[in-house]
Structures are given as structure tokens and as C-alpha cells.
């Protein structure tokens, strides 16, 4: 097992496309770090630079205290699970699982023992003589995972390994990966574009945008204190609501004034007056019922109500067409086109600077 460290890593492609800029990131020994971001954010490129499949144009990559920046992939002792699974079509499952060990000149008897053990634990024992073409999607995924496990490498890399599975299997496999990580205590780097996968799996989650690291934190911290508007919007589903406005000090506290409402917010740090964005999660919005002390109140028209069983998602439109999404208990009676009061609780408010979207921390 080993830790992985990226120091000021840059990746600029010859055509000028920047996949990583000044990226520094540390994955502790035994940690599962998730790299998440929209497509084109550079997350896969970062993983491929750790693997040695892409060379950084600047900076250093360390694995287990060793500078591996210039080492080819076969000398890094990593295992990787690809989105496409990348099983060798001309080999049986047994040969696929054992390929990495054969390349590393492990004795045949030892290969046999380890392949059998991994196949047993993943329920692949019956399939050892089949070829990848004769397997279902879920089985292929298992073989891909098994091929990584059997190697007992110093770290595991996952490149969107679940995105080709159907929804049910994805949830099951996600839980299984989580259990596997706890059992092995292995260092893992996991790339996904799915924020649900990111927050459910990761010990810590690194959010990337356009090759720049936005925030690295445990999932709940990302959710509670997003470092900027982008992270706030990206993490959490449905996405956070944003209201443009201005922030000014008033006495001991601060006041946020939006287009359709005004409310007192916790005292913000010095120098944060001016253009600001107020963010609030759909789950924190209140519909119906009496406004509490200090809540912001917004009047909006109900557009669409989506019953989800355990809750309902309500799409509302404020005057001027501003869109607000709220999540309420499932039995709240709402009529489409009815105008309701939307309560914004002061304690649930996130404030971001209008200029660069950075979070405005509360004054201490």
C-alpha cells in the first residue's frame, strides 16, 4: 500500500487544451479519494497521469514516496479498472485475471491459487473458462475488478467503472466497492462524473473544473460548506438554488437583498459587501406553514410537482421567470399555478461572492 501525491501538476495538450493546472493533491495511504467533475474537467486525465498513461507537462507525481513522474505504467505497480472494462477478448476469464501476474513473472502455482481465490470471492468461479464475449455486462465488470484485485497492487485506480451498468446493479456494485475498500484498506482513486457516486463512496472528494481543483473535502463538508458556487451547484441533488443580489452590513449583522426578497444573514467576514449570490438547497426551502423569525420569504408560482414517493420535488417560478426548486414531504397539497410562499431559513443559507463565486465565510 502507498500514498499518492501530485505536486503542481500541469497538463497542457499540444493543441493548447488545458486538462490540469497547478494541481496539487494528496491521497493518504488506505484512503479512497474520488475525483469528480463534469465531462471535460480533466478528472480522467489526472487519473491517467497517476497511472503513467499520460505524461504531465509540469509538476511531480509521487507514489509511496517515490518520484514516478517519468516511469512508464508497467513500473508503477498500480491496477486500474477501465470504464470499458478493457478485458482481453482473446483470453479466457482465467487468463484475463492472471495476465498481470504472468507479466510480473509470478510462479504458475501461485497465479492459480490467487486467481482461484479472487474468482471465488467475486462469484466468478463458474466462469473461469469463458471468454469476455460470453459474459453479461455485470460479469465483465466483475472480471475487470478481479483483474485489479488479483494483482495486490500498491494502489487501485478506477475510471468510471460503474457507468456501463444498469441502475440497480450500479447501486449494488457501489456498495460492494465500498465494502471492498474497507476490507482491503487499500489506497484507491476513483473517477466519476456522478456526484451521488462521489459522496457515497469517497473518504474525501476532490471536485475538478476545467483542470483546476475546486475543493477537496469529506463528502459532508462539501455539502455543508462548498468552497464556491460551482461546488455548491455540483454537489447535491436536486442542485442548489441561487439568487443574485447584494450584501451589505447593517448594525451587528448583514442583509442580503435579492430581486424578490430581502433577509438578514449571519454576519459575514469584513470586506464582503457588494454583489453576492445566495445559495440554498432545495431540501432546506420551506413551502406552506408560517414563516419563522428571520426567514427570507419569496412568492413563487408552482410550475411542476414531481412525486418521488418518499418526497416530492417542486419546480416553482418567481416573478420574472427565476426558477426555484424545492423538496417537500410527499403529502403536502400543492396545486399547479397556485402562488405560494417559499421560506428561506437564515441558518441554511450559503453566501458566495458575486465577482468570483468564492464562498463568503461567516465572521468568527
Amino acid at each position: 500500500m502507498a500514498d499518492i501525491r501530485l505536486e503542481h501538476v500541469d497538463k497542457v495538450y499540444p493543441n493548447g487544451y488545458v486538462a490540469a493546472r497547478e494541481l496539487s493533491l494528496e491521497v493518504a495511504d488506505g484512503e479512497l479519494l474520488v475525483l469528480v467533475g463534469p465531462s471535460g474537467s480533466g478528472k480522467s486525465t489526472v487519473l491517467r497521469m497517476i497511472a503513467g498513461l499520460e505524461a504531465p507537462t509540469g509538476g511531480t507525481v509521487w507514489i509511496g514516496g517515490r518520484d514516478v513522474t517519468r516511469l512508464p505504467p508497467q513500473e508503477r505497480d498500480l491496477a486500474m479498472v477501465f470504464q470499458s472494462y478493457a478485458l482481453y477478448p482473446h483470453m479466457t476469464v482465467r487468463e484475463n485475471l492472471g495476465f498481470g501476474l504472468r507479466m510480473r513473472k509470478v510462479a504458475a502455482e501461485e497465479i492459480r491459487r490467487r486467481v482461484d481465490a479472487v474468482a471465488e470471492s467475486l462469484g466468478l468461479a463458474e466462469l473461469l473458462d469463458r471468454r469476455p464475449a460470453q459474459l453479461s455486462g455485470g460479469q465483465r465488470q466483475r472480471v475487470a475488478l478481479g483483474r485489479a484485485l488479483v494483482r495486490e497492487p500498491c494502489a487501485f485506480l478506477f475510471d468510471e467503472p460503474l457507468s456501463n451498468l444498469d441502475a440497480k446493479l450500479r447501486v449494488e456494485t457501489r456498495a460492494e466497492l465500498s465494502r471492498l475498500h474497507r476490507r482491503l484498506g487499500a489506497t484507491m482513486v476513483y473517477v466519476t462524473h456522478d456526484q451521488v457516486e462521489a459522496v457515497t463512496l469517497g473518504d474525501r472528494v476532490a471536485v475538478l473544473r476545467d483542470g483546476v481543483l475546486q475543493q477537496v473535502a469529506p463528502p459532508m463538508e462539501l455539502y455543508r460548506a462548498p468552497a464556491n458556487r460551482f461546488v455548491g451547484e455540483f454537489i447535491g441533488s436536486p442542485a442548489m438554488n441561487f439568487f443574485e443580489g447584494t450584501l451589505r452590513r447593517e448594525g451587528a449583522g448583514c442583509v442580503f437583498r435579492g430581486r424578490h426578497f430581502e433577509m438578514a444573514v449571519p454576519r459575514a467576514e469584513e470586506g464582503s459587501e457588494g454583489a453576492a449570490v445566495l445559495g440554498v438547497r432545495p431540501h432546506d426551502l420551506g413551502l406552506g406553514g408560517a414563516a419563522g423569525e428571520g426567514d427570507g420569504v419569496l412568492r413563487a408560482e408552482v410550475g411542476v410537482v414531481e412525486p418521488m414517493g418518499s418526497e416530492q420535488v417542486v419546480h416553482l417560478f418567481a416573478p420574472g421567470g427565476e426558477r426555484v426548486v424545492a423538496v417537500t414531504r410527499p403529502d403536502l397539497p400543492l396545486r399547479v399555478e397556485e402562488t405560494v410562499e417559499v421560506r428561506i431559513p437564515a441558518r441554511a443559507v450559503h453566501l458566495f461572492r458575486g465577482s468570483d463565486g468564492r464562498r463568503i465565510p461567516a465572521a468568527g
Partner: protein
Amino acid sequence: MKGGGWGRWAAAGALALLVAFAVFPFAWALVASVTPEAELFEGGGGWPRRLTGDHYRALFTERDFWVPIRNSLVVAGATTAFCVAVGSLAAYALARLRFRGKAAILGFVLAVTMFPQISIVSPLFLLLRELRLINTYPGLVLPYLTFAMPLTVWLLVGYFRQIPPDLEEAARIDGATRWQTFTRVVLPLAVPGLATTAILTFIYCWNEFLFALSFTLGPERHTVPVAIALFRGQYQVPWGEVLAASLVATAPVAAVVLAFQRRIVQGLTSGAVKG
């Protein structure tokens, strides 16, 4: 299908015509090769009154046709083996490695095949004479490479590009070197392509005439097409023997193609569908 009727009959008729058109020359040659010499020149064609094996017998007794067959096998076989061995490496590099001027190299390789063969016969002859390779096997294999190698490289670049790069990356991460990745993962997956390429190269070399005629001197080095061309005497053409020889020369190629038929069809169509 409903209401095929006339359309179906028309299609069947057209197909029958096409098959007849394709098969007729072979059938004609086959019949002529077992028709006695005297009957061949009576004209009229049609089925011979008497079948004879004389032409075939003459081929392997008087003509010593084994020699040109052996020569052709050696030359075409060596060219093919060399082309596939070296060409696959070149093609892999061109398909996968990132380097400057790749497109230019591919264009240049293609341009080489565009020289009219006749225009390089004299320079090649001088070159080979200087190297003392006239009337030797290498003296034919080397010129053959000028057209066979570009063909091989172009075909194989296409096949290698179809192999998903993920597989090679997985192999690298699994601990394989570039060479191991090539031999353990890429080559086995490219077998249909390699077989197709090898067969096409072999057929080209087997049928090549101009170089073979120009760079060999005596019957001991003549290849099949040259030998057949030189059957004709001063006053007559032994058509029976010429056609018998043609059929004998076609047989090995046909055998090879039939043996690899499934692989070739797989190879020719595998590019059509993605994934």
C-alpha cells in the same frame, strides 16, 4: 417477403448471368486443358470427344513445371513473411505512436506504390546487377517489397487502429512492456487482419510478371507466370499446356484462400461495424 414474383425472378436471372460471366473463363480453361491438342485447333469449341491428361503430363515431364512452382513459392512466401513481420511493426508504430510527420510518412509510403512498375525496372536492374543479385531469390524478393510493403503497411494500419486503445493501456498497467503488449494483446487480436494482408501480398507476388521476367535469366529461376509466358514456341502456342499450367498455378492460391476463408471474411467485415 411479399409479392416477390417478377422481381425475384429478375434478380435470380441477373445473378445467374453474373455467375456465368465469372465462372466461364475457368470452365473454358478447364475443358481446354483436358482436350487433345489436335481437337483444340479444330475450332467450334464445346465438349471434347475424348478427354486427355497429356497436357498435365507434359507439364511435369517435358516442362519440369515443378521448378517455377518452387521458385514462385519461395519468392512469394519469403516476401509475404518479411512483409508481415516488418510491416506489422511499422504499421503498429504508425497506428499508435504519436510523432511528427506521421501523415507525411503514410502519404510517402502510398506514393511509392504509384510509380509505374515499368519505370523502375531499368534502375532496379542496374542496382541488382551491381549487388550481384540478378537471377537470385533475393533479387526478386527485394523488388517485390517495393509494392508489397506499402500494401501491407496500409492494410495493417487500418486493422491496428480498430483495436481499442484501452486494451493496450490495460496491458501496460498490468505490467506488460510495449513489446509484450504488442505480442500478447495486439497481434492476437489482429490475426484476421494479418491473414488477409498475408494472402493479398502472397497473391500479388505469385502473379507478378514484369519484375520476374526482367530480373531472372534462366529457367532455373523463372517463376510461374514467366514460365507460362515462355511456353510459346516460335511457330505455335501450346494452348493446352498453357491452360493446364494456369490451373495448376491457381490451385495453391485457391487452397490457401479456402483454408483461411473464414478468417478473411471476418477480417474484411470486422472494420464495418464499430466496437
